[in-house]
């Protein structure tokens, strides 16, 4: 420790300056291209803008958000989609991770193939699933033996986008969890087995607690991604209310029914919701993740 200290004080000035120079491009770029637009959007959200007519209306747009049935419909859709898809992805992903962790023959192949859904662009996956669900030719109906017009009925099309999202991202969750599983020492299981713990007990009392960091990271990324989701809902149902998520609803007032001030209020509200949920996650595990980098440095 003392030795490192002396080296860094000797080089202190050079390294501090270098640190600032190294950080500057990234943070300047993010500030100009991502942070500035957020404030710009907040500014615009205080105006009522229709065509070329523009008028300062203070927080009227936000008051309108709070009384807009369409907005609450979008909140509901987003919530249903997020809760359903993230929990299904977690269950399926955990099952896949356990399967892959157990197997030896063919594990490499599976671990490679499991990336395939993840690498396909969401809009492409959405089109494929939309047509699999479509009444014509009726692939899903023929597999399930049902006769449902999936894309016409809001509830069934929600099932459609949830299935598509679970298909695409459960493998991603499985990869994160598998990496976590591989860090759990085998001795723990041996010891528990000698003590007579059943499979379920071993999973519940060893695997789950030790997997917690990986689980929280997987849930963070998946939840935030689900909350800001646009592609699946738009490809399945356009700007219609049936599947409109928060992102789709905000986008609708830019494109389909242009009211820029209101659109910016909606996207700002979406931004705030996503950030609050993300921060709630990060405050639970961020210290652990960030601390990792900070600790290694010593």
């Amino acid at each position: 420790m003392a030795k490192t200290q002396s080296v860094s004080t000797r080089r202190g000035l050079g390294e501090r300056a270098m640190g600032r120079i190294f950080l500057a491009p990234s943070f300047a770029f993010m500030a100009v291209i991502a942070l500035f637009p957020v404030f710009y959007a907040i500014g615009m959200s205080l105006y009522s803008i229709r065509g070329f007519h523009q008028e300062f209306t203070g927080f009227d747009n936000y008051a309108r958000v709070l009384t807009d049935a369409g907005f609450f419909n979008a909140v509901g859709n987003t919530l249903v989609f997020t809760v359903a898809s993230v929990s299904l992805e977690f269950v399926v992903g955990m099952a896949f991770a356990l399967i892959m962790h157990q197997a030896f023959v063919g594990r490499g192949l599976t671990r490679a193939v499991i990336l395939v859904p993840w690498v396909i662009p969401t809009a492409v996956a959405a089109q494929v699933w939309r047509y699999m669900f479509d009444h014509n030719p009726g692939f899903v109906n023929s597999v399930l033996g049902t006769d449902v017009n999936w894309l016409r009925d809001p509830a069934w099309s929600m099932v459609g986008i949830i299935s598509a999202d679970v298909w695409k991202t459960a493998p991603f969750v499985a990869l994160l969890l598998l990496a976590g599983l591989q860090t759990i020492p085998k001795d723990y299981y041996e010891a528990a087995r000698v003590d007579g713990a059943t499979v379920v007990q071993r999973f519940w009392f060893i695997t789950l607690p030790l997997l917690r960091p990986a689980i929280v990271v997987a849930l963070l990324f998946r939840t935030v991604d689900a909350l800001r989701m646009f592609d699946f809902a738009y490809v399945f149902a356009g700007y219609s209310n049936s599947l409109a998520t928060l992102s789709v609803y905000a986008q609708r007032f830019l494109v389909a029914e242009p009211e820029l001030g209101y659109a910016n209020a909606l996207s700002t509200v979406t931004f705030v919701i996503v950030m609050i949920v993300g921060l709630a996650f990060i405050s639970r595990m961020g210290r652990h993740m960030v601390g990792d980098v900070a600790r290694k440095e010593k």
Partner: protein
Amino acid sequence: MTAETVKPSGPVHRPRRRTHPAVVNALKLLGLLLVLGWCLFPFLWMGMTSLRSGSVALTDPNIFQGPFSLSNYEQVFDLGFQFALRNSLIVAAVTTAICIPVASLAGYALARLPMAGKFALLAATLVATLFPPVALVNPLYQVYLKLNQWTGINLLNSYAGMIIPYVALTLPLAIFILATFFAGIPREIEESAKVDGATPFQAFLRVVAPLAAPGVGAAAILTFVYSTNEFLLAFSFAPRDLNVQTVPVFVGTFERVGYENPIGQIMAASVLVSVPLILFALVLQRRIVAGLTSGAVKG
């Protein structure tokens, strides 16, 4: 399987572990097949549907029912899908080429260099990965319009118009991954380079950066995949012009021509973009897994 097989060989304290190895292996294999089937079955459907001509593909759910032809592929190329592929490749490659060097500098600084408020900066980087792109669409659009008014530079319907926000949106995750990798490199290596007379910058460029190559690769791949995947901003800033339109926009907004449902053409386009991406994923899988899991797992 039964108590009888256990009795002669095993002592009493392991009564339940003697499931027949062949059964266990068969179950494991079945599990893996389940995972493989899950990942791949939509591709079978997509591939077969792309080969069936429009009217049959729309009326008969049996994907093995012909007649089969390559006409959908011909039509997709007639519509200019090759340009969308080219555009996606250019946008993703340039985004990666800009993002990764810039992020490497920041990642190294956060992992290694002394500075005030490092913890806060790392936390801010992590928070920035959550950024919802929908919050960028309109403000950036307005900025692009103003920029065009003032300087005559038009970023709408241009590669740059997409690349700029993509770099901003991919930087945080790339910085975070790279910082994790840089932090994992033993400090002694760097110190000894400095003792041998290297300046801090030389130590970074000649010693640390090459050692972090796996991390750099992983971050680059994730950035590339993000840029090929992005739909909302590409759709807002470059919706129709085939000179710049990317694959997700081409496929996601595929319009029916006349009354015919374009199922075959859409699947043909999906196959054409899936094949290179799948090869990409298979070839680079180790790096991808390293990148995806770097934050999730300690050490």
